[in-house]
């Protein structure tokens, strides 16, 4: 990460420094996705947290275009109860 490799106490963190920054690739671009189907709930779920939120781009590395497609697909899927709006409890 592009942050200062020191923690609050000013000590150097060894582990993190050595880690090379690996650029994340948009998974949809790699698959050449042109349309994201709202019915494909299993795929959508991979881009949602367990609480039911859409995972942000900074975590998944999805490109802007596909993130937009993902967002609308998830919202449609929520409407017909294929994926949850929220899940407040875990089994």
């Amino acid at each position: 990460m592009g942050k200062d490799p020191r923690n609050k106490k000013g000590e150097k963190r060894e582990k993190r420094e050595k880690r090379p920054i690996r650029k994340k690739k948009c998974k949809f671009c790699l698959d050449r996705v042109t349309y994201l189907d709202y019915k494909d709930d299993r795929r959508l779920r991979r881009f949602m947290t367990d609480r039911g939120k859409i995972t942000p781009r900074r975590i998944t590395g999805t490109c802007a275009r596909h993130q937009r497609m993902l967002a609308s697909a998830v919202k449609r899927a929520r409407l017909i109860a294929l994926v949850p709006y929220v899940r407040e409890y875990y089994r």
Partner: protein
Amino acid sequence: MRSYECAVILHPAVNEDGLKASTAKYVEIIAARRGEITKVETWGKRRLSFEINDQPEGHYFFYRFRGDAAIVAEIGRHLRIDEQVLRHMIVRDELAVGDEPALEPATVEATMRAPQTEEESRPSFHRDRDDDRGDRGFRDRGFRDHDRDHREEGRRG
């Protein structure tokens, strides 16, 4: 003419005959207004992600058709009246090319989608990795230590 896709969730108590009748009814409505049905698909009884009208499951149907906007309004009206319908959604069919063959309205039957393995019941014991809104009084406070581990992992990735 535009291509649309209509998703319908029917009440789980509707029986086999009722499902057929329901399909026939909506196919009829589309056909009566010179709409062309290209596909009717059903997923059978499926678990809902959340309860709708206190029902934990419902019968899923997807109608793909071509027609004018008036048809959309008409089906929407019928769907809202129909008490068997738990929920419906009509969207533009963006996958349609526009030249799919139209089905004969009288013989249209819902085709079953191939069953898929259920992934839904996967247990999970951590909160959102990036849930930065702090404790909101949920019952899962006991998991906060697990949570912390995952959070660390999430940041590194």
